[in-house]
């Protein structure tokens, strides 16, 4: 299990990186934390002719407040730095709730926040969590930059809206409105194993405790992280009761998704887990929304 040969580029600045990307395009693969890419190279499932290593660009690793109360996270910020950041914990506890499920601490010490999103693994935690949080992604190329919203970003398994000469440089997560609660639940066979199903829920209540807005994102249920739109819509203007929650969970499991099976999980079991975990997440997010933010 040794990787095939490749040319190696390790620029020290984003501009330099973009120059190389624009020159090589399809013939180069971006190396961020490498915690998914390197295993697939070791299995020789991926054999990129060249690697663009971003690890020598200190400018891409930061966590800073956004003026509106959100946060902006540089693409090369290590998962463990996000996990232990007090501002992230305070403003977006759902990120903190999801973080321990990303493999193991040794992987999070190396894996990056942006890398996980750009990798667009349908079983990845961070694509789904940022989707639930309505994040937008800042993308640069030699020719300029653009922001892509999370609803348009994930196109298929390991496929995003980014062009080969583009680089994800930062992720902006907007502030949560008042009376918003969040929650994250997943089922995996053991600590650090791939989630059979994961659910991130963000619920905002109106002063009368009716649902003003909800975003429910699921992972491991389709070709991309999936936003359960019908489930969320079914809650609009309603109180969160066992009945409305059950109806939303049912919509998530039967309308918003059509899950397939794999060796760990039959389609029926996966549907069952969607019901159970969506319900659990909505319940918890609702409680938190009634209590305080997050």
């Amino acid at each position, binding site marked *: 299990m040794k990787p*095939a*040969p490749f040319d190696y580029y390790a620029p020290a600045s984003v501009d330099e990186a973009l120059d190389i990307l624009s020159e090589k395009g399809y013939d180069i693969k971006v190396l961020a934390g490498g915690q998914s890419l390197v295993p697939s190279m070791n*299995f020789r499932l991926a054999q990129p002719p060249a690697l663009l290593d971003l690890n020598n660009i200190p400018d891409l690793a930061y966590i800073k407040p956004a003026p509106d109360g959100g946060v902006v996270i540089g693409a090369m910020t290590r998962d463990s730095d996000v996990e232990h950041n007090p501002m992230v914990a305070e403003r977006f506890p759902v990120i903190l709730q999801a973080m321990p499920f990303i493999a193991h601490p040794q992987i999070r010490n190396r894996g990056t926040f942006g890398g996980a999103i750009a990798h667009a693994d349908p079983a990845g935690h961070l694509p789904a969590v940022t989707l639930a949080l309505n994040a937008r992604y800042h993308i640069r190329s030699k020719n300029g930059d653009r922001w892509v919203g999370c609803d348009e970003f994930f196109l298929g398994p390991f496929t995003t809206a980014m062009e080969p000469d583009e680089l994800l440089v930062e992720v902006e997560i907007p502030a949560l409105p008042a009376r918003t609660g969040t929650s994250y639940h997943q089922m995996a066979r*053991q*600590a650090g*194993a*791939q989630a059979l199903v994961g659910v991130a829920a963000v619920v905002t209540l109106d002063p009368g405790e009716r649902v003003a807005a909800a975003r429910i994102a699921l992972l491991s249920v389709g070709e991309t992280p999936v936003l359960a739109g019908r489930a969320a819509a079914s809650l609009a203007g309603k109180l969160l009761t066992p009945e409305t929650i059950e109806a939303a969970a049912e919509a998530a499991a039967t309308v918003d998704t059509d899950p397939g099976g794999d060796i760990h999980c039959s389609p029926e*079991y996966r549907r069952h887990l969607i019901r159970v975990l969506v319900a659990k997440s909505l319940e918890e997010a609702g409680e938190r929304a009634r209590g305080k933010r997050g």
Partner: protein
Amino acid sequence: MAGKYLGQRLKRNEDPRLLTGQALFVDDVQLPGMLHAAFLRSDYAHAWIKSIDPSAARQHPGVVAVYTAADLGKIWKPGPLNVPPPSGIPGVVFNQRTQVPMAKDKVRHQGEAVAVVIAESRYIAEDAAAEIVVDYEPLEAVIDLEKALGEGSPLLYEDLGTNLASFVHQENGSYAEAAARADLIVKTHIVMERGTAAALENRGYVASWDNKSQSLTMWATTQGPIALRNGLATILGLSEHQIRVIAPFVGGGFGPKILLYQPEEIVVSWASLQLGRPVKWIEDRQENFGDTSQERRQIHEAEMALTRDGKILGVKDVFIHDTGAYNSYALTIPLNTQTHTTGPYKVANYLTEYRVVFTNRILVTPLRGAGRTYGTFVMERLMDKAAKRLGMDRTEIRRMNMIQPDEFPYKTGIVGQDFAKNVLDSGNYPAALDKAKEMIGYEAFLKEEQPRLRAEGKHVGLGISFFTEGSGVGPYEGARITVEASGKVNLSTGVGTQGQGHFTSFAQVAAEQLGVDPKNIFVTTGDTEAFHWGAGTFASRGATVAGSAVNAAALLVRQKILKMASKILEAPEEELELADGMVRVADIPSRCISLAELAVKANPSRGAVEPGTEPGLEATAYFGPPYGATAYGCCAMIVEVDPDTFNARIQRLVMAHDCGTVLNPMILEGQIHGGVGLGLGNSFFEKLEMDDNGQLQNASFMDYLIPRASDLPPIEIAHLHTPSPLNPLGIKGVGEAGAIPIPPAFVQAVEDALPEYNLEISEAPLSPNRLFQIVQAAKQA
């Protein structure tokens, strides 16, 4: 029989090296001019090889050689059997098909080697292997055990005309007669699945042929270095004394590393001979899933005949055993199943019969538990079912059928893996059952705790399972002990070591006889230059058989010491004592001589000795038991099932265990802990998912899960001590104990946690997905 050293909880001698990164493992061997091998392996499970074109790979820069089966010349032939088929059972069918060094005309499992590249680095070797072009004609794969024996199934071996590898029938008494007079017959259909040993260290070999000394040195991750040396000598056409096999520190064995004449062992050593340079091959994890032997796939149709008050009249078990593409290890595993099914119980009428089937999967050889696991699962499931049907307590039905302490030795009449009719040597089974019940708080849990938890909406169940572990089988092992002129003691034995603490436990055995601190006893295991007689480390026999040989050799050295010291100190032998590296006259400690001085005197450099004198304080001794000693135990656990996700967690696990005399309780407990870890894997996680085409779906640790720290509960152990009469120290083996009783206890606990569904679980492992499906089916029924 705890002594000053024996039976003490001594820290291990080998640990400082292992803990500081100074212990030599095979992949740590670096030699000047060393080359690296990479194998090209079949993606197909079953295919004709029409042609192999290695020309591009041969041209690859850095490549020294590329070999296929055609290049191996006369060393290409099916390897010798590791184990012969059993003698003493009438009517045995055994169709021998052993592994070949590389596939020639046909590949019979995914991962089978078809070519090897020898290059300046492993990286280059893998690059070039990808350039070898193989033209295959794919064939339908034989995967399903029942279909494999059916009409029209594709055949692994056309010349054989069947996929039947073996048939064995044994019966003690008459099951038909027992069934005819039974009040109740319970039946079950059991499926256990294949897993893999997954030692953290993969296999690996470094072979170095030295032209000037005309000798081959081979570092190997083997559990049987001496047998490997002898086999290689025959295969390569060398004298045994031209080959030195060293099994250095080995990173976990668990069974598959006892398999000999594996393709890579032969090809790597042969390549070194051809090229006159050292060659290294280290198996990678992906290869390990396809080229290292596996275990645990059997399908049982079993039934038990009982009286209405719960007495067992007879058991009938008919099963199919998957041997994979080859049967180099013959019938050890299914024989173990046959001897362990009835376990601790008196079963006067027992019929056991199996068919072994060739399938397009890697061959099957023993893996920690080795056939005992299924037998125990089958029997314990039958006991549970009978208890339910008769409305009896599950521990009572077990107790009333147990062999009693005064009934040993107990003959079952069934021939086992050592080809002897199985005899259970000693024990107190009811005491172990009582102890486990007491530790888990059986009555209180069922009467108070469980109802209280149910009221809180928690689904918590108790599982309890009994098992026996046939261990310490023959043929023999040996040991040589030398007291050096430095006063230090050298001890060598033929078994290899894979973490069992032999450097310490063997030293403790010798120390007890010689009065030397175990720290000053240097143990060598697994180096054919240090000791070249022995069979290997398997069947939980290291401590029992090699440990007994060490004891015998130490006794002989002790006698030599006493005889010499008696003359020098002018005191009768009975008055001498050995302690602190000295021989002393018991009442007059100032009259003493050190072992170092004695050793010098025992090896005079000038002058004359009495005729017949052997030099040195040295002795070699061997030990072979008449048959294996049987350890046993009882495991109980508390399992909580999450009714939403069907995830199950073991909250507590206790084990009452008896392996006779304990050499070092710390090491013993460690063995049980590790076995339990594998047992949990077999209960919950470990199934190699093979599709109908013979493609493994989970050939990585991402998809094939093995237990992690938070998957396991704390394990509480109680020791019982019934010394075995089969060896002077009274030892029984323990290596496989932990793995055996976990699956039946686990599924029983899951059933107990979900009483509302009245489940009958007859499979292992039991994943949350499967439990969900079983519950859904029960709901619909």
